[in-house]
């Protein structure tokens, strides 16, 4: 089974802190994604990466950055956390090969509270 692991399930951080959310996948997937989930808004794409060291902005990249130094790991960085970044963050991955059916696999999510 595909496994997407988010190392921190629940975090509480202070305003202005630098926050790292880590995600690891074990299926050698090329594509990795970070989504933010808020009630009524569904999931919104923050950043995605289609290869090592490659990244593309999603719909809501402001206040976030990402790092992909190794294929299996995709990190989301909040340079200076703010209270409006309190949310659930979901990491996901997929292969780029269309024979897979383009299924995207999700991690369990990281609940971040900024106080």
């Amino acid at each position, binding site marked *: 089974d595909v496994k997407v692991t988010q190392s921190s399930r629940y975090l509480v951080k202070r305003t202005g802190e630098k926050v790292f959310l880590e995600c690891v996948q074990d299926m050698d997937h*090329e*594509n990795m*994604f970070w*989504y933010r989930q808020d009630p*009524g*808004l*569904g*999931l*919104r*794409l923050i950043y*995605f990466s*289609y*290869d090592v060291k490659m990244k*593309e902005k*999603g719909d809501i990249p402001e206040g976030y950055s990402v790092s992909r130094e190794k294929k299996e790991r995709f990190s989301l960085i909040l340079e200076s956390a703010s209270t409006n970044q309190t949310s659930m963050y*979901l990491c*996901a991955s*997929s292969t*780029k090969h*269309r024979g897979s*059916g*383009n*299924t*995207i696999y*999700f*991690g*369990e*999510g990281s609940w971040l509270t900024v106080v």
Partner: protein
Amino acid sequence: AQTVTQSQPEMSVQEAETVTLSCTYDTSESNYYLFWYKQPPSRQMILVIRQEAYKQQNATENRFSVNFQKAAKSFSLKISDSQLGDTAMYFCAFMKRDNNAGNMLTFGGGTRLMVKP
């Protein structure tokens, strides 16, 4: 850009009955995929069912089936013989069919489904 709309924020159904969740989308693309994902409370998002837009036949997966109306840009999910374990948040999602890397999903706002005993 694509948009996905789920007009029912919350729904409930009695165990063993049938329920239909609505989803509409807007796109100028002709080739794409549509998905329903399920997110149980405090658990991982999982794929329920997938439809390829070029296929006219509606997808089915056991008790889950879709009604895909391409012209109307509608993609509803029907759950038959509802079970308590179907209680979850359900998300409709769109993906452009693209040969390039980066198969991103655009999600609707979600429908919270409660199955009552």
